[in-house]
C-alpha cells in the first residue's frame, strides 16, 4: 500500500534508520543520537526543505528518524546524510546499512517496533518505554512532533500495549538471569520476603543479583573468594556482602542460591550442602550459572532442593522463544488492524484541503452567479431573495456531494494520490502546510474509527457534507 511519487513531492510519512539487523554495533554506536544532541538534530532536519515533523528513536539496537515530509526524496536524502555524517561515512557507503520505509510501510514498521517484533529479543518490554521517551522528547521540541507524528506515535504506543496485553508475546523468560529468577518463582510464587545468596561476583552473577532485587528478594547476600569484589558489586547493585564463612552459614535459611564463580571444579557438593542445610525442610532453589559448573549434580538428589545449571536455563529460554514465536501471527494481525486504521485517518486527512478547495471554488462561482441573477431581478422582497439563495446553496451541495465522496474514496485508495494531486492542480491549490490540516477528529468517523473502505460510506464525511447530501 506504500506509495512513492515519482517526483517525491507528496505528503507522506517516512523512516530512515539503522538497527541490529543492518548495522554492526560499531556503526550503531556512531549513529546513536543521545538526549543532549537530539534537539539539535531535529532542529536541523526540520529546517530542511520538505520535512515537516521529526521524531528520533535511538536505542542501543536502533537509531531511526521518523519524518512527516512534503517531499519524500528530499526528506530521505536529509535523513540519510544526517546518519552518514554521524557514522563518518559517505552517503553511498552508508546506504548499505541504512533502511527506509515510506507511507503505510512506515506505520507498520513503527507498530512492529513498538510490539517488539523487530527487537533483538522478541517480546522484550523495554522498547515500548523507549518509544514513549522518544515521543515525549519530540513533544519538548517545538519543531519535532506535529499532528501526524503525534497521532502515529500515540497509535504506536497503543499498539505496543495492546500486543502485550492481548497476546502472550511478552510472557516467559527470555534471558539466562530472567530464566533463573522464573524458576525460583515457580517454586516460591514470589521472591518477596525470600533470602537469596549469590556466590561469585562476575557479570552473570551481578545480572542475576539485579533480577533477584527487582523481584523483591528481601535479603540478598553476595559472597566472593575475593571479598573486595563482593563489596564492589554490592555497592554498585545492592544486597549485602558476606564472607565465605557467613556464606556457608547462610545456606541453612536460604531460599535461592546462585553460583557463578570461575572455579574449575565444583565448589558445592551434596555432602557440604546437606551439612549446611541441616534439618531445614523448606525448598532451596540452586541456580548454577557457572561454566564449568560450581555445584555437584548430586545436589539435585537432596529432598526439597531444585538444582538447575546453565543448560537447564537455556531450555527455559528456548521454550520461551518458541512460545513467543507462536504469538507473532496474532501480534501481526493486531498491528495490521491498527495500521489500517491509522492509514485511513492519514489519507482522509490528506483529502480535507482538496475538498475545502473544491467547495471554496464552487462557492465563489455560486455567489457570483447569485449576485448577477439578483441584480437583474427587480422588485424581489427579502424573503424571495433568501429562498433563491437557499435554493442555489442546496443545488450546489447536492452537486458537490458525489465529488466529495469521490475525493474521500480517492484518499483511501492506494493509487488515489495522483487523482488528488491532479484535482489540487486543477483547482490551483498549493500544497497544504501541516498547520492548515483539519483536526483529526474531523477526519474520522464517529467513535474515532475510520469508516470501512467498503464503498458504502466515506471515512470522514463531515456533518455539513452529510446534511448537504440530504438537503
Amino acid at each position, binding site marked *: 500500500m506504500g506509495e512513492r511519487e515519482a517526483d517525491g513531492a507528496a505528503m507522506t510519512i517516512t523512516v530512515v534508520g539503522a538497527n541490529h539487523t543492518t548495522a554492526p554495533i560499531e556503526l550503531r554506536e556512531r549513529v546513536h543520537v543521545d538526549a543532549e544532541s537530539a534537539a539539535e538534530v531535529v532542529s536541523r532536519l526540520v529546517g530542511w526543505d520538505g520535512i515537516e515533523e521529526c521524531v528520533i528513536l535511538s536505542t542501543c539496537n536502533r537509531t531511526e528518524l521518523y519524518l512527516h515530509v512534503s517531499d519524500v526524496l528530499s526528506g530521505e536524502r536529509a535523513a540519510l546524510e544526517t546518519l552518514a555524517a554521524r557514522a563518518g561515512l559517505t552517503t553511498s557507503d552508508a546506504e548499505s546499512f541504512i533502511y527506509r520505509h515510506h507511507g503505510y510501510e512506515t506505520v507498520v514498521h513503527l507498530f512492529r517496533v513498538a510490539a517488539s517484533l523487530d527487537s533483538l529479543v522478541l517480546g522484550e518490554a523495554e522498547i515500548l518505554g523507549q518509544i514513549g521517551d522518544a515521543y515525549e522528547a519530540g513533544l519538548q521540541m517545538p519543531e519535532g512532533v506535529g499532528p501526524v507524528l503525534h497521532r502515529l506515535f500515540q497509535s504506536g504506543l497503543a499498539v505496543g500495549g495492546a500486543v502485550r496485553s492481548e497476546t*502472550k508475546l511478552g*510472557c*516467559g523468560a527470555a534471558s539466562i538471569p530472567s530464566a533463573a529468577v522464573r*524458576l525460583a*518463582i*515457580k*517454586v*516460591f*510464587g*514470589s521472591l518477596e520476603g525470600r533470602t537469596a545468596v549469590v556466590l561469585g561476583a562476575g557479570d552473570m552473577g551481578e545480572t542475576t543479583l539485579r533480577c533477584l532485587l527487582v523481584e523483591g528478594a528481601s535479603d540478598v547476600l553476595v559472597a566472593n573468594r575475593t571479598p573486595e569484589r563482593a563489596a564492589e558489586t554490592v555497592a554498585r547493585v545492592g544486597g549485602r556482602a558476606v564472607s565465605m564463612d557467613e556464606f556457608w552459614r547462610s545456606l541453612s535459611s536460604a531460599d535461592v542460591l546462585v553460583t557463578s564463580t570461575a572455579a574449575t571444579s565444583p565448589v558445592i557438593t551434596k555432602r557440604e550442602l546437606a551439612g549446611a542445610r541441616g*534439618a531445614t*525442610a*523448606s*525448598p532451596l532453589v540452586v541456580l548454577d550459572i557457572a561454566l564449568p559448573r560450581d555445584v555437584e549434580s548430586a545436589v*539435585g538428589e537432596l*529432598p*526439597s532442593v*531444585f538444582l*538447575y545449571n546453565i543448560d*537447564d536455563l537455556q*531450555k*527455559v529460554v528456548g*521454550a520461551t522463544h518458541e*512460545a513467543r514465536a*507462536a504469538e507473532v501471527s496474532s501480534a501481526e494481525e493486531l498491528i495490521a488492524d491498527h495500521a489500517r486504521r491509522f492509514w485511513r485517518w492519514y489519507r482522509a486527512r490528506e483529502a480535507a484541503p482538496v475538498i475545502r478547495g473544491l467547495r471554496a471554488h464552487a462557492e465563489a462561482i455560486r455567489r457570483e452567479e447569485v449576485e448577477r441573477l439578483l441584480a437583474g431581478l427587480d422588485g424581489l422582497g427579502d424573503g424571495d431573495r433568501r429562498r433563491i439563495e437557499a435554493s442555489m446553496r442546496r443545488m450546489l451541495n447536492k452537486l458537490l456531494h458525489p465529488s466529495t465522496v469521490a475525493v474521500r474514496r480517492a484518499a483511501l485508495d492506494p493509487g488515489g494520490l495522483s487523482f488528488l494531486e491532479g484535482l489540487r492542480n486543477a483547482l490551483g491549490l498549493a500544497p497544504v502546510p501541516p498547520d492548515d490540516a483539519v483536526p483529526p477528529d474531523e477526519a474520522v468517523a464517529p467513535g474515532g474509527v475510520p469508516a470501512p473502505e467498503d464503498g458504502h460510506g466515506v471515512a470522514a464525511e463531515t456533518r455539513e457534507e452529510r446534511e448537504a447530501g440530504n438537503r
Partner: protein
Amino acid sequence: MSAGGLALDGPDAAAMILALHLLALGLYAAAWVLQLREFRQGRESGHGGVRITAGGFVAHGAALALFTLTYRSLPLIGLGPASSSLALVMVLFVLAASIHADLRPAGLFLLPPVLLLVGQAVLVGVGPTAGQLAFRGPWFVLHVTAAFLGYAGLAAASAAAIMYVLQFRALKRKEFGSVFRFFPPLDSLDRLNKVGLAVGFPALTVGLLAGWSWTLTFGRGLALEDPQTILGMVTWGVYLIAIIARLRPGPHGERAAAISAAAFVVTVTAFLALRLLAGEPDFFL
C-alpha cells in the same frame, strides 16, 4: 405455583431451572475446554476461563434460587438438587482461588467434577423428591451445607495436591513443558491445599456432627450401615491423615500433596462403590 415475584408456574419454573442448568453446564464446559487448550499450548492461564466460569456460576446460582423459590425448599435433597448444590459450592472455590492469578489453572482439575455433578443433575432432573418435606429443620440444613462445604474444600485441596505433585516432578526432572508453564508455583499450590484442608476438614466435621444430631431428633443413633455415614467417615478419616502429614516435621510439601491426592482417590472410589450399593437411587448416595 408462583415462584416468588417471578410468577412462574411449576412446569415453567422446572423448564427454566433445566435451561439455566444447561446454560451453566455449557459455560463450565467452555471454561474447562479453554483451560485445557491453554494447558496443551503451554500458555499461562488468562482471564477468559475465569470469566466464563463466573458466567456459569451466575446461571447456576439463578437456577438454584429459582428452585428454592418455586418448591419452597433448599435444593439439598435428592440426587439432582444435591449434586447441583455441591457443584455450585465447588465452583465458588474455583472462583475464590482465581482471585489469586497464580491459581487460575486450578479450574483445570476442579471443573471436571463440577461438570460431572451438574451433568448428573441435568440427567436425573432437578426437581423436588417425594420425601422432600421430611428433610427440614436447622440441623438438617446445617448438616448438608457443612458437608457440601467440606467436600468442596477437600476437592480444592486435592486438586491443588495433584497439581503440586505434577509441578514438583516437572521441576525436579527439569521438564519445562506445559505443566511447568501452566501450573501454578509450588508455594501457591501448597497454600491452596492448606486453605482447602483448613476450610474443608472442619466443615466436614461440623457436617457429620450436625447429621448425627439430626438423627437424634428422630430418636435414632448414628446409622453406621448408612452409605452416607460411611462416606462421611471415610472422607473424614483420609483427610485427617492428610492433615497429620502436613503437620509432621521435615519436608512436607510433596508428601502432604501426595497424601491429599491419594485421599481424593479413596473418597471418590468410596463414593462410587457406595453409590452402586445404595438402595435409593433418588438420594445423593
